[in-house]
């Protein structure tokens, strides 16, 4: 008699813990799913961006391209930075086929037939912004065809063996 009560409370206890655990798991899943939906950004190459300009006009995007050094302009009064980026492959195999990231970036900048886009960014000019750097930007495509970046990450694979930590900026 007494034994059954103990097992009963035991299993009731077990249920309680399983329910509690399930609730936590459900909460974590909910947080992941809803946050993914809220902050997902298409990751596009410049080619894809140009091709799908209409479709992605109102979305948060993340794009990557090669910085064209000659195009860098900085209005230091208003901290408005503009520069052009050229298409580089997004796929690692394609990059390797071009001889690695450094070579691919160089080819991108040298090749005037590649699709290009102008990026506008407001803030201090990042130290790593230079010719043939890889820029990864989040932001939106504007009506005038420029890309308004609110975050700008840069890396320069040419100069150092180590891929240098990116310089980031939030606005």
């Amino acid at each position, binding site marked *: 008699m007494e034994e059954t009560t103990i097992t009963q409370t*035991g299993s009731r*206890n*077990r249920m*309680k*813990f399983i329910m*509690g*655990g399930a609730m*936590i*798991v459900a*909460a*974590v899943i909910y*947080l*992941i799913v*809803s*946050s*993914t939906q*809220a*902050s*997902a*950004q*298409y*990751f*596009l190459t410049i080619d894809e961006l140009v091709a799908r300009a209409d479709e992605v006009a109102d979305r948060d995007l*993340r794009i*990557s391209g090669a910085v064209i050094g000659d195009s860098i302009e*900085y209005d*230091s*009064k208003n*901290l408005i930075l503009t520069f052009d980026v050229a298409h580089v492959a*997004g*796929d*690692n195999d394609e*990059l390797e086929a071009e001889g690695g*990231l450094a070579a691919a970036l160089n080819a991108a900048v040298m090749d005037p037939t590649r699709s290009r886009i102008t990026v506008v960014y407001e*803030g*201090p*000019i*990042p*130290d*790593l912004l*230079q010719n043939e750097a*890889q820029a*990864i930007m*989040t932001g939106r495509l504007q009506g005038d065809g420029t890309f308004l970046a609110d*975050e700008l*990450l840069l*890396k320069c694979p040419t*100069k*150092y*063996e*180590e*891929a*240098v*930590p*990116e*310089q*980031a*900026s*939030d606005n």
Partner: protein
Amino acid sequence: MIANIGYSALVLTLLVSLYGIGAALLGLRKNRPALVDSARNAMLLTFPLLTLSALSIIYLLATNHFEVEYVASVTSRSMPMYLKVTALWGGQAGSLVFWSWLMSAFASAVTLRKWDRDREFLPWVIVVSLVTLAFFLALNIFVENPFTRLWALPSGQVIEKMLQPAGSSLYFPTDGRGLNPLLRHPGMIIHPPMLYLGFVSFVIPYAFAMAALITGRTDDRWIRLTRRWTLWAWMFLSLGLVLGGRWAYDVLGWGGYWGWDPVEIAAFMPWLTGTAFLHSVMIQEKRGMLKQWNMVLIILTYALVIFGTFLTRSGVLSSVHAFAQSAIGPLFFAFIGITFTASLSLLMQRWNVLKSKTQMTSMLSREALFLLNNLLFLGILVVCFWGVIFPLISELFTGQKVTVGPPFYERANGPLMAGLLLLMTIAPLSAWGRSTWQTLGRALWKPAVAALVVLVAVIVAGIHNIYALIGIFLASLVIAVTLYEYGRGIFARRKRHEGNLVIAFLNLTRRDPRRYGGYLVHISMAMLAIGIVGIEMFQTETQGTLSVGESLTLGRYDMVYEELAVFDAPDARNVARAVVSVYKDGEPVGELYPRRDFFYDSQQPMTIPGVRSTLADDFYVLLVDWEEISTNNATFKVYHNPLVKWMWLGSWVFVIGTLISAWPEKENSLVTKRSRQRVAAVVD
């Protein structure tokens, strides 16, 4: 010459490691202790050998031996000596050697302990440690050799090879390519070794866990033996993370400290499982529960440590594009895959032996709350992991690469982290075995009143952001509860006439260093939370171009542009340094010197902010641009970062707390003290 010595030492260490693995296994099989002892000596030998190898690299770096490719790739003539030396971990090949070097130091330290009571663990600890070491050595020898030299072939072509090709001669570049200026910061110099120390020292508890699984000695001996290792590992890892954040704050020039990029997350993930592990082992020690779970956690931590080493040093970057930009990628994944599968299958075999006899009874008991803490840590881990692999998953299923940025991590982790803060307020007050709302409420109400007072004060001060209020309330509740716990302990001691407050406090901590050290860590986490709330929710910024004498206003601060000087510094650097006076509420509070250094050899600028840091806020000034020659006008970007100093102060509290926790415990009576000391001597 030196390169050959260094390389030979590497090869020799690999051979010694392989011998050690073989001897330990054979000694076990044939039951010959002499062979195991020989394996132990082999493990001891790895450290001096790798020291020789590491010193060779350091020598080459320090003496500008640019014919060695690694030296040319990470140093240049103009770099100061300390940077040349620390360039040992400035690039991939060197940092792998550095990793192995630390690993061998830890492995040697383990072999030096007294093994009388745990003889059966020894061969397996040797095997696991040496397998790990051998993997990294093999990477260095076969894939990422730091000693390859540049050779000029008769055809004039320059190639990279370890051994001299026929007819070639050594090629000496006139200068190296140098270390990126952005990495020339004390935080960045100490940050990798700290992370590595953390990574490496987690291998030891893992080795003991595997030894326990293999030998079937599945009591909590392995946990007691490795408790201090785990704490040290954890402390170094945490320090590595904090220093990385500090570097970002000081150098990257946007007033931020953490960007949720994959490399940061890679270092953060083992920290999460490690922290969960630190908590859940206590349940095993006190209640004999969660043995399987602890095994899972340490196995996960080990896998994440190897993964973290790979991600932080493999050139894989924010782009999420590639997990295999260098040749070592697939090797790392293979190694992680093999060790992970092997560990898990071992665990499966012992699964039933590890079943605990006791059951959790009360939802509010200490062990139940610890379990909840573990779930939350793992929840954060899953969030982070999901964020890192989401681009790959989305591409696989939809053909479209979709990424998630910092907002994802903040949104998903925010509630989980708040949950952890909440647990920190309840768990220290709950009892092992059984707690009820009544007992908890009795202990909680006084600190809760204190936290409410803080909350009301903050609201009156004009802060109405609900998330900020929740964060501040929870953080102050954690601090109040923890201080209250201290107070209760001190009060009880004072009653027993143990002298003044300070002595009572010290005695209390000495009596139970683990508990009170842990409390300090809780306080530091609350301080961290306060700093994060401050900078994340209340950062403000402005910018402007000023003529000399003009001022810029941000909140209660005014900043006046005084002057700007441009000059050459001795280490091939051009410096533009501005002087600005800062006023708070009209009162002068000092000068700041934001500057921009331009490094001639790398043709790269580096922006260094001027920061005035107080407990209330940081006033953070960047020099953006200036008028050449006349220097009459200069443009500044200014950030106001409230409370951020709490973060850095919190990390000091954190270190002190962890050190106290790792302190050997003091016992009551002399008899047990002596016997315990013997135990402690064995443990150490």
